[in-house]
């Protein structure tokens, strides 16, 4: 049941995880579950409510279903321009 998930980290989240990207094998069903795993793994408590999430480069719900080989990115508040 383990899924292969590609994670990329940017900005504040990269700072907290000290990682650019990684492949994770996880049972997480949703980004919400996955974020809990990351908070434990990297020991941070930055709130999910400050973030958005994208699966395969599309914004989606924290309760979307993650499939194996998906790319999941937690998106801190953007500030282009």
């Amino acid at each position, binding site marked *: 049941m383990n899924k292969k998930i590609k994670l*990329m980290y*940017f*900005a*504040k989240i*990269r*700072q907290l995880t000290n990682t650019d990207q990684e492949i994770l094998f996880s049972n997480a069903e949703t980004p919400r579950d996955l974020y809990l795993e990351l908070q434990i793994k990297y020991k941070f408590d930055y709130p999910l*409510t*400050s*973030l*958005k999430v*994208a699966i395969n*480069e*599309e*914004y*989606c*719900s*924290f309760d979307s279903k993650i499939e194996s080989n998906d790319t999941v*990115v937690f*998106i*801190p*508040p*953007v*500030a*282009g*321009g």
Partner: protein
Amino acid sequence: MFILTDEPITQEKITDWKKNFTKDISGAAVTFEGLVRNHNEGKAVSSLEYQAYPEMAEKIANQIINQSKKMYSTDEIFCVHRTGHLQIGEIAVFVLATSAHRKEAFNACEYLINEIKQQVPIWKREHYVNHDPEWVACHQCKHNHE
């Protein structure tokens, strides 16, 4: 068309883009340049760092451009955004909208930069004269969890 670049956005490049994206039917060209300024919310800024999630930034920015082409009657809409470390006065983002009529060009240009700032996964870290650097948030952003 949207471009991410870690090379400086120079006036020479802007001149070329304007020539390329202006047609004989165009009566109006409106441009926006977002510049690195030396202050933000009362703090003296020494430089800026932009980080992007490139694949998604390009995808979302092109969706926004297509959306604005549907909303406004333009000839061309073009946007380029910097990444990397920028000094005061450097151009962080350039937007060009051309149209037969000026109202459409103004509206398209302003709509585009507003949406780019709110939706495109690009982050800005401000380096200050007297403080530690910080990742800053766009204040108009609505963090709806769609």
